[in-house]
């Protein structure tokens, strides 16, 4: 089905489509981790409705609304995407599918991939058939990401991969991984890295979950032991993988500005959360009030940056501010939620401890707060060194 390009016609079309195709169960306004559909070969649908909703959305390209139709998207421009998201939110519908493929690999392929790579890899992402993991960090390459050492050697007809990745999200659930690998060990560190796609079923690939302080294991170590990879699975130019990685990191932070509302910032008013608790502590109340002021101003900043982007002014390096301020704010908020909950929030049966502990990673993953501050001081303020 082709949607209208006229915004107002589109709005009524999408409203009718949602009404007809989004199962009632999927309209529960949830967007927490447990409600997300990640897709992939190993995915166990939580309900028939979840599968039905994924298939319906994928059949018209609405799992990836802005991707071109030929690669599995709906070809929506920004304006119509916004209308779609507004209408989806209006009925409280969940997102039909979320994944690293949608957030990260897709945008990288659209920017740097060949037509063949796009045709091969994008539609299965859009349909939720293939789940991707991200293979960036290594034990010796965290904030210093360009120091990756995992080797990808040219063996004539194929590549041979050896090494280890860490913090690979859900690698044990993933079908494929996109990884930053060293293809030239003699070049300066940024100039000898390639962006490589690897099927997790290839002999020599193994994973091991890492148990986190929250008790869950969303991250893995991933090992490559003499893994043979076809030549055409490099994205972009060999040895220029850092360009792809950098594009993705900026894209990831800009995405926060495009859809961040609710991810950080205000959410449920802290005042109500405190009122639900048993504390009449004035200090806690004052801290929560300050957090609320900051959260509301931050939400307006997301809106301002979105408006800027729509007026054609890029957000660029200022996205580091959104990442830094948004994640720090989120951590502050969860500290207050825990304090408001008192001893009632100390039981693993409650969902607050795990959520609180999870936020501690917000300011580490995707570039630490300190890396963000360094980006701002050098690229925006022009400070030396």
């Amino acid at each position, binding site marked *: 089905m082709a949607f209208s390009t006229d915004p107002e016609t589109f709005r009524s079309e999408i409203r009718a489509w949602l009404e007809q195709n989004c199962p009632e169960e999927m309209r529960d306004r949830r967007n927490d981790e447990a409600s997300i559909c990640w897709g992939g070969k190993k995915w166990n649908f939580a309900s028939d409705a979840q599968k039905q909703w994924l298939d319906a959305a994928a059949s018209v390209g609405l799992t990836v609304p802005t991707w071109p139709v030929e690669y599995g998207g709906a070809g929506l421009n920004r304006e119509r995407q916004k209308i779609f998201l507004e209408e989806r939110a209006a009925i409280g519908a969940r997102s039909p599918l979320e994944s690293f493929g949608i957030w990260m690999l897709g945008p990288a392929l659209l920017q740097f991939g060949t037509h063949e790579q796009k045709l091969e890899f994008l539609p299965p992402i859009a349909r939720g058939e293939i789940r991707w993991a991200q293979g960036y960090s290594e034990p010796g390459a965290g904030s210093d990401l360009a120091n990756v050492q995992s080797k990808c050697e040219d063996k004539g007809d194929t590549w041979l991969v050896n090494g280890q990745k860490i913090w690979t999200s859900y690698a044990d659930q993933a079908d494929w991984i996109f990884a930053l690998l060293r293809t030239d060990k003699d070049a300066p560190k940024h100039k000898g890295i390639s962006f490589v796609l690897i099927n997790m079923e290839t002999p020599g690939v193994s994973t091991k979950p890492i148990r986190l302080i929250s008790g869950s294991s969303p991250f893995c170590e991933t090992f490559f032991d003499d893994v043979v990879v076809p030549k055409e699975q490099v994205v972009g130019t060999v040895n220029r993988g850092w360009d792809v990685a950098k594009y993705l990191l900026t894209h990831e932070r800009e995405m926060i500005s495009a859809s961040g509302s609710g991810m950080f910032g205000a959410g449920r008013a802290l005042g109500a959360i405190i009122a639900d608790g048993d504390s009449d502590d004035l200090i806690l109340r004052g801290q*929560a009030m300050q957090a*609320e002021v*900051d959260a509301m101003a931050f939400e*307006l900043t997301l809106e*301002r940056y979105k408006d800027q982007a729509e007026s054609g002014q890029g957000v660029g390096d200022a996205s580091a501010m959104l990442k830094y301020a948004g994640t720090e704010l989120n951590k502050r908020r969860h500290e207050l939620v825990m304090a408001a909950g008192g001893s009632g929030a100390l039981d693993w049966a409650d969902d607050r401890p795990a959520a609180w502990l999870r936020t501690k990673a917000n300011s580490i993953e995707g570039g630490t707060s300190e890396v963000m501050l360094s980006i701002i001081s050098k690229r925006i303020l022009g400070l030396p*060194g």
Partner: protein
Amino acid sequence: MAKLVKTEDEIMLADAARGFLNDAAPVAHLRKLRDAGQTHDPELWKSMAEMGWAGVLIPEDAGGSDMGHAAAGVIARELGQTLVSSPFLGTAVIAATALRKAGRSDTLAKIAGGDVIYAIALDENTKFAPEAIEMQAKSSGNGFVLSGEKQFVVDAGIADRVLVLARAEAGLTLFDLPVDQAGLAVDARDMIDSRNAATLRFDGVEAPGDDVLGAPGEAMEILRPALEAGQAALASELTGLTAGAFDMTVGYLKERKQFGVPIGVFQALQHRAADLWCETEITASAVLNAGRVLDETPDEATLAVSLAKARATDTAIKAVKEGVQMHGGIGMTDEFDMGFYMKRARVAAEWLGDYGYHADIVARARGF
């Protein structure tokens, strides 16, 4: 709502204002006034009126330029950047909004022409709380008699007229009086920000019925929008002040050398400067939003305005604190301008409601 992006007109207005003020009123101008024992430059105010700034919120048929609250914010920001001492906020923003609301076209025309300056007399103790004031306005004939004391009356020493909030039998009532009215004594204060403020003593001051703005008992209908306009403009002034202090600080980090290198290479300072920049970005959104809301849905502006004043206050205080610290010893000297920024930030933080006052309004609106 209009986008949270500056319009072409707003950018042009800011550039024009900056160009004018760089010549006519850099920080050195405030220093010169202070050293001469003055708080006000009538010529400067006259020039500002000629550019349409005094009439920024006054209808065109009353001689104003009627550019709106976002534009008033643009001007206030530029005034803040070089710490310009002027009656802009009290007269062109607060009094003009109140008088417009009360339909006083004659007085509005005088404001737009730069021919009358207003002071606003609200506070009766050390904190802003207009609805809790106690000064009595006793009925007398067809008018009232005012007795009591008002503190922190900004611009009182240079004003021709004063808006006074008092409590009549009908409730809070707003009066528009000449400053030289019999029984009214002006006790000027030597303020830390080198601006004008005074304590006003009312000893049986007669206020004829015509001097009431709006109706007795309905002061807040006129005053609330006027104060919100003033609070939003003051928040804008504070963002300009913050930018002025921050730019000086970042400039200093690049040029000051210690241990043989510019001190800006030290990560301890880099990260603090970057954090401060983030604060300024976030505050800018709240302040821009307040101007937009005041222009588009002025009856629902309370939350947006208080958010802006709270954030702008907080950020400005941080910026001047870091400004002095990062400048080291020189930041403590009177010869250097940073101290002027710090002292103005302190006064602006208190005027029209401090952080706690406005954070409380935000919190209440958010379920606290």
